[in-house]
């Protein structure tokens, strides 16, 4: 939803000096009509009418990003108003639906923050892709002259590489005014490779105004101070270059406050202390949702750092895979009910004793069933089936969602791998972590699915010896 398609329809309308609608192209005409307006009457969409009046009084063209109610939905519009022949000419584009349930910080923005927080350094450009900002310390650290690069075209700093499809992700993103990730490039003249990711900046008229980007060094060989002594044992390479204790501190520092924010916002939203204006209750529910997203992100980061350590290990306990699956399904019952999805869980008398760590197995299954619920249409069913062979016990989680194309089936297990970045959901770490955990316990996690047929994930653990 956040890809600004320049081909999106532009609807033009004209108002007279009194703010009455003279004529309007179809989409604007219909929006105005649904809001109770008509030709010859004042514009009935208040935000657009305000903008038109302002433009007329100031005597200049102005643009704003406007959210207008359209029946049950919210529409996100780019509106440009310009004084014209004593009246005002309107250009309205965008026309994107903004579902009410979406947290205010949209997913790609959150992902953007996420990428930047883990990036080695940052850069920004203007619309002509000339550099307007660079992390000033990056040059000295990675062997280029930061100050000489400012104001220069991005391609002076980076030699861009094509991806497998023979395309440059950054150019595709410029054309679509969307975000990109995974643009490989060489830092010119240094021989060092980076991965670039960026989100577009947009002006209030919906036009591309540049990129806000991050760079991740692909080679780990950070030029360290010359070594004097015998080789020091290498520390486990921490995720994103953070010190080892970072995730623990992050966990400690954020989990408590976030928990409090979520709990309080939930009780405001539930109006347990008395009635409240409905929109305030909704804000509170937005706050709680945003908090839950953040908490999820903290969990993912902590897990990510744990599993990427060389000495990561899981406990080997005797667990009942059927019991774990039933518990995971139970944990997601509320979310499934909200999404009008039914979970068909294993019967109480089923049992498959396997070797693994209870907590980690539960985590994998909560992730799989959670995904299945998220991608299921209302009224659909999520099946959880058990199977066993000589060596392994299997849990199969199947849904009736749109399925995963064969070509994407490896991608979903990659770090930050998401098939459709516009899709709401997690950080792109869940399945990556789940598979690493399954393999660490001597098992595996695989998918088989075809587009249109739902997804089928198989989580296996070794049978108890």
């Amino acid at each position, binding site marked *: 939803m956040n890809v600004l398609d320049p081909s999106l329809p532009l609807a033009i309308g004209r108002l007279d000096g009194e703010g009455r609608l003279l004529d309007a192209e179809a989409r604007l005409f219909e929006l105005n009509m649904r809001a109770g307006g008509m030709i010859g009457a004042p514009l009935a969409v208040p935000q657009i009418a305000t903008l038109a009046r*302002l433009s007329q*009084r*100031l*005597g*200049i063209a*102005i*643009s*704003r990003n406007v959210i207008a109610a359209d029946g049950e939905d919210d529409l996100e519009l780019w509106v440009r108003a310009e004084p014209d022949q004593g009246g005002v000419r309107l250009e309205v584009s965008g026309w994107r639906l903004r579902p009410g349930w979406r947290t205010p910080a949209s997913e790609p923005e959150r992902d953007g923050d996420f990428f930047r927080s883990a990036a080695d350094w940052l850069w920004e450009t*203007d*619309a*002509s892709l*000339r550099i*307007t*900002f*660079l*992390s*000033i*310390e990056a040059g000295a650290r990675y062997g280029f002259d*930061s*100050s000489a690069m*400012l*104001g*220069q075209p991005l391609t002076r700093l980076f030699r861009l590489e094509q991806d497998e499809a023979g395309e440059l992700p950054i150019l595709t993103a410029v054309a679509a005014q969307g975000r990109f990730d995974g643009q490989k490039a060489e830092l010119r003249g240094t021989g060092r490779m980076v991965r670039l990711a960026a989100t577009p*900046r*947009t*002006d*209030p*008229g919906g*036009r*591309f*105004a*540049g990129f806000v980007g991050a760079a991740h060094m692909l080679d780990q060989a950070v030029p360290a101070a010359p070594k004097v002594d015998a080789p020091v044992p290498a520390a486990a390479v921490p995720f994103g270059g953070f010190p080892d204790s970072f995730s623990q501190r992050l966990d400690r520092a954020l989990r408590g406050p976030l928990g409090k924010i979520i709990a309080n916002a939930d009780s405001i939203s539930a109006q347990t202390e008395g009635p409240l204006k409905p929109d305030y209750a909704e804000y509170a529910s937005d706050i709680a949702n945003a908090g839950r997203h953040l908490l999820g992100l903290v969990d993912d980061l902590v897990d990510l750092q744990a599993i990427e350590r060389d000495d990561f290990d899981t406990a080997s306990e005797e667990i009942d895979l059927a019991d774990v699956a039933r518990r995971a399904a139970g944990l997601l019952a509320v979310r499934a009910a909200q999404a009008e999805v039914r979970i068909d869980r294993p019967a109480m008398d089923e049992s498959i004793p396997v070797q693994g760590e209870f907590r980690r197995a539960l985590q994998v299954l909560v992730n799989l069933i959670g995904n299945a619920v998220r991608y299921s249409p209302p009224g659909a069913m999520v099946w959880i089936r058990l199977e066993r062979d000589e060596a392994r016990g299997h849990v199969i989680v199947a849904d009736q969602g749109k399925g995963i194309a064969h070509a994407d089936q490896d991608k979903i297990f990659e770090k930050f791998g998401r098939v459709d970045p516009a899709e709401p959901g997690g950080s792109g770490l869940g399945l990556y972590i789940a598979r690493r955990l399954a393999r660490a316990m001597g098992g595996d996690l695989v998918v088989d699915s075809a587009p249109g047929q739902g997804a089928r994930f198989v989580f296996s653990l070794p049978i108890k010896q």
Partner: protein
Amino acid sequence: MSDNPVGMRDGLAVSARELLARAAAAELRAYKGLMVAVEDFFLPEEARLDEHSRAGLAALLRSLVETVEGEIREHAVRLLTGHGESVLVGALIEPGTSVLTRLWNSGLLRDGDLMEELIARVRQEMLGAALPMSAPDDPERPSLINRFVQHPDRVVAASAMAVLIAESRRRTSPDTGQYQTELPAELHHRLVWWTAAALRERVEGANETLDQALCDAAQRSLSAYDEGDRLEAAAMRFAAAIDAQPRELAGMFVESLGDRRIVLFIALLGHALGVPYALARDLVLDPAGERLWLALRALEIGREGVAQIGYALSEADPRRDLEKFADTLDTIAAILPVEARAALAPLKLDPDYRAALIALQRGGAK
């Protein structure tokens, strides 16, 4: 709450006498807390800092003090280590009351000049970040400052580059070692000596050797500091280098705001008016805006230019009243440049003379 009060530190049961003493202390604390709350409640709303600026100010103050503290401590430790003063070194690097807390509690940070500068800087940054971005009509056209980086005149190109470098440095995180206070030299001076004094206080058994080391470290920090490196100074040099002609001014003002380069906008305005940066910044940050409209008219900016500047600033600053601005726009546009210049003449007087006049007024009775 637990039924058996137990000391949080040692886990021992709390004696009755201690409880009574604590209750008495709590009563006094509650009263003082109430007085502060009452004071706070009756403050005029428009004079109070909003939460956003307050948080920004606290963060800025912390990074400035910690940066200066880091510099002085590091150098003093090096000097003391050279003299074999390991006990003093240990005391100096031992975690204790932070310098920031000490300066905060001492009231020294309530320095009017320092706070004026910091609050203005926080507001300036907030304003810049909230300005509506404006994309060029031609996507190939670089932003204003980037075009000047390519300028054939090397003085212009170098000064444009210096602005970009200074801005990137300003946005650096304080942890990178590239961070500087970027305060006017006088204020940096004050902060350095305060910090050195606060560091001395933390060391038990401080002696002349420590004093000398702290003084040397402070001196070193002062001599390495160049206020000409400040982003504001770089922007003023750029404005002087391009010396925009009257007919170019309106376009540059609007474009610098559209590029979200608020410091550049202020510097262009300051240079065109012939006033120091800090004064131009006052005009731009003042939500009432009257002095800014006069200044724009003095520079012969037409109705359209004033409207675009006023609109952009209103979109970025919730304290501004866009409707009121639209109401007065015609009146503003009708002011003759010569009148506007006369009204603004006092701004061009020697800043020290103006400061003295204001101080005298504040002082009260003749």
